[in-house]
């Protein structure tokens, strides 16, 4: 009970973790690892590889904890590290192939999906079915909320390539959903 109250304050927990306190690190890991594994899983189909990537991500978190300035949220900071770590993993494995096709004029076309009854696992399966290049850009843009400029910088691709990959990912998802006889929704 005393230990729990001692580590109540996250800032203090972070400070202790930065100084190498293993117990504090374990508590931070226990708190954030399920969410972060979810992040890594969005990019990496195999959950075991995703876990390895997450562990490597936490290793970077704890060894570079001094550089965290408490300007933004700690979760956001860890999340960004996990995204970068996942991208690095995909690059190392040479899974990602980006083509530089010209952006389709119909990139802003409306999608008509019926997703109200789709659970998380179903969505994840749809995303997993995308090629890694499409999937990475799609997850970064649609789920993590990165801008194309940021995506292009992180993936070392042009902004047009990022847009093209996103468009292709959307179209592919649309086709898959159509195949599942889904009912369409319009964009806002």
């Amino acid at each position, binding site marked *: 009970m005393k230990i729990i109250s001692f580590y109540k304050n996250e800032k203090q927990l972070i400070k202790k973790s*930065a*100084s*190498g306190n*293993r117990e504090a*690190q*374990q508590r931070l*890991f*226990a708190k954030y*690892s*399920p*969410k972060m*594994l*979810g992040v890594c*899983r*969005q990019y990496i189909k195999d*959950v075991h590889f*995703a*876990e390895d990537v*997450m*562990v*490597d991500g*936490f*290793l970077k978190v*704890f*060894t*570079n*904890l*001094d*550089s965290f300035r408490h300007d933004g949220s700690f979760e956001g900071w860890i999340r960004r590290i996990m995204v970068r770590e996942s991208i690095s993993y995909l690059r190392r494995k040479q899974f990602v192939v980006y083509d530089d096709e010209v952006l389709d004029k119909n*990139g*802003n076309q*409306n*999608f008509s*999906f019926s*997703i*109200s009854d*789709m*659970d*998380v696992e179903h*969505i*994840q399966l749809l*995303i997993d079915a995308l090629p890694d290049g499409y999937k990475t850009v799609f997850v970064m*843009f*649609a*789920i993590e*909320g990165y801008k*194309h400029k940021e995506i292009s910088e992180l993936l070392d691709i042009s902004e047009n390539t990022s*847009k093209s990959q*996103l*468009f292709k990912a*959307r179209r592919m*998802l649309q086709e898959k959903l159509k195949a599942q006889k889904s009912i369409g*929704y*319009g*964009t*806002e």
Partner: protein
Amino acid sequence: MAPNKFEKHIRKQLEGREIEPTANAWANLSEKLDIAPSQKKRDYLWYGIAASFIGILIISLLYFGLNDAENLPAVQVVEIDETIKEDITNSELILEKNANEGLVEKSKIKPLAKRGVKDVIKNQPLELKGQITSIKEKEAVVNLELEKVVVAKDFKEEIISAKILEIVSKVDSLEQNNEVLTDVEVDKLLRDAQEELLRDKLFKNNSSVDAMALLKEVEVELEQSFRDQIFQSLKTGFLKVRTAVADRNN
């Protein structure tokens, strides 16, 4: 290319998604943390290395700098010693040459030694108090040594004078006995006196100067001339006394 409804729904669904890691995930991470040093520790290591390097550099500079400063005066001190030694040797030679005259004065020797020391001080690039003190100490020691030489010289003259008076009294006593002394006999008396002086090692025993060290440098020829000088001084003194006695009697 704004996010559509489908994407918003996906985002909502996946954003809060949690997957529990396996039980050995933490053990795996803990093991990696044990191996990998933290950024902080690595930084401290580099800071430590840098600080050590700078420290060693400063200590080396100080050490060698001081050594240089110390070495420079040490060389100068050696020079002082040599100068003084030379002066003492020169003074000794002057004393020996003028032994018969007994004209060597303390004042003549002192400025000679002082001048040597002053020249050295002038040539010193660094005027450090300690060095000056050391030079002054050296000067004091040299003055003391020179005083001793002068005292020894005076003592030597006294002995020679005493010997002359002894010879004169001997000659007088022989003449009073109506014996006629030839020049050869007088010379013999003087030679005997000279031998006595040398045999007794008069100058050596009574001198507080390191005569051995100085005499080692004197060659045999010089020693011979020194003997002659003693003989000459005895003869001159004897003749003077004789002349003075003769004049008085007349």
